């Protein structure tokens, strides 16, 4: 457990020292969102209707942009092969890195989402389901994206490939994240949507850990 | 010839039915042709390589 926490703590510390990681993702998130009013027109009514969708789609894209760095730096400086040889199973290393990634991207995006909601004229009732959905849904993204990031290690044009590999897998999280907001707006219960997001997370945990570890072992051979 | 014409007309949906069959033929037939051509090209390449390998030994 100590080793697991140490891995999370190290990734967080590295990210804050470098300063770029979280800021880059958040910067992409904010800039991409500001593009939408230009694309669909600044009418507050239209923006308010599609605000939840915009925020979710942009969160997926922002996460995708950040995956390339998840394992690459550790691969290049030899840290990854050492991590693979530690007593801590590689599956747990992958989980630890996914958690650290989520804290820096998913959580940061979730915290920033209400502000973006204000800018996009998101209806008042929609804030709770949006934030709750992002909170439960974005960890799945970090886990599944981790598999993609591990798979493209050693591939040519790896960074460009990740999006093609993982965005289709993100679709369920997007669907239920947005439907949670819509359900609340039409007066339906919120809980089923959040429970499905939690179920997706329960699937993504083993898939991310075992798939990611298998892909990393392959990359280290 | 009226029967042929009405067959080709497909009850007014010629623009739907014939392109659908055409596209299917183009894609699946195309894949088959591409696969067969790569097979025969590789067969030829292998034949050349094997003949080159035999020569210096004998």
């Amino acid at each position: 457990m100590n080793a697991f926490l140490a891995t999370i703590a190290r990734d967080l510390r590295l990210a804050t020292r470098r300063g770029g990681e979280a800021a880059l993702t958040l910067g992409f998130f904010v800039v991409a969102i500001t593009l939408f009013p230009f694309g669909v027109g600044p009418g507050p009514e239209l923006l308010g209707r599609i605000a939840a969708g915009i925020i979710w789609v942009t969160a997926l894209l922002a996460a995708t942009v950040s995956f390339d760095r998840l394992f690459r730096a550790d691969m290049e400086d030899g840290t990854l092969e050492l991590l693979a040889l530690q007593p801590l199973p590689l599956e747990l290393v992958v989980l630890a890195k996914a958690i650290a990634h989520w804290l820096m991207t998913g959580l940061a995006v979730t915290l920033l989402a209400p502000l973006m909601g204000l800018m996009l004229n998101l209806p008042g009732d929609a804030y709770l389901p949006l934030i709750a959905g992002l909170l439960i849904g974005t960890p799945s993204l970090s886990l599944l994206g981790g598999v993609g990031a591990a798979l493209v290690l050693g591939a040519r044009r790896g960074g460009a490939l990740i999006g093609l590999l993982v965005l289709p897998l993100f679709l369920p999280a997007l669907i239920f994240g947005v439907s949670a907001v819509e359900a609340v707006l039409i007066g339906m219960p919120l809980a089923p949507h959040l429970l499905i997001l939690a179920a997706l997370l329960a699937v993504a945990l083993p898939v991310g850990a075992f798939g990611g570890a298998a892909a990393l072992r392959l990359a280290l051979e | 010839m009226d029967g042929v014409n009405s067959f080709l007309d497909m009850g007014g949906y010629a623009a739907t039915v014939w392109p659908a069959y055409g596209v299917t033929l183009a894609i699946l037939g195309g894949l088959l042709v591409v696969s067969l051509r790569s097979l025969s090209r590789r067969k030829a390449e292998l034949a050349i390589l094997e003949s080159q390998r035999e020569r210096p030994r004998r």
Partner: protein
Amino acid sequence: MPSFLHSLASPARFQRIANAIMPWAVLLTVGLIGTGVVWGLAFSPPDYQQGDTVRVMYIHVPAAWMAMACYAVMALLSASFLIWKHQLADLAARACAPIGACFTAVALITGSLWGKPTWGTWWVWDARLTSVLILFFLYLGYMALAAAFDDRERGGRAAAILACVGAINLPIIKYSVEWWNTLHQGASVFRMDGPTIDNAMLWPLVLTGIGFNALFVVLLLVRIKSELLARRIEVLQRARAAGRS
């Protein structure tokens, strides 16, 4: 069990089995698809609602079946490659991907052509269409990943992991898309009146369906043979390079 599979899957043995199956598969492909298509186009009745557009069904529906069946075969081959590390499984899985992608493309395009007169639009974000589109993306991702490595073996294994992850996620995607669709649009537009399908329409559909399976076998065998040759060429070239240096 693994050793039994291995003996079954040695290249020489594969060649023998493939050569034995091939003529039958070709015969079935030509005969069944030919009969089914002629039957479907010329002799089956037009639908009382959709008119002659229903004739698209005889290729569209089998293509959609094959799109999914191909992925299942590819994922099974990938899993067995990861477990038993047999090269032939990797070869076969890679050979599956373009075939599956082509069947998926056929299903999407014929569906779109059929959709125009039936629903008045080329594309609807219907649950089935959307999940087939995602399936198409998964095939593309698999092929891109398999080709993105300089080391062939490594690319094969990375792609195999992706195929397995996709196999777990594909049903999830499919059901979430279905649920999303019913939430947004109510009842699906895509209604085939499945149970009421007439025998005169069922038969050509079954014929082309089996014919497409046979076509899949033909394509798969040709592509595996071709890949085996490519590996043999690579080995010889490498031996030559090593001999001259």
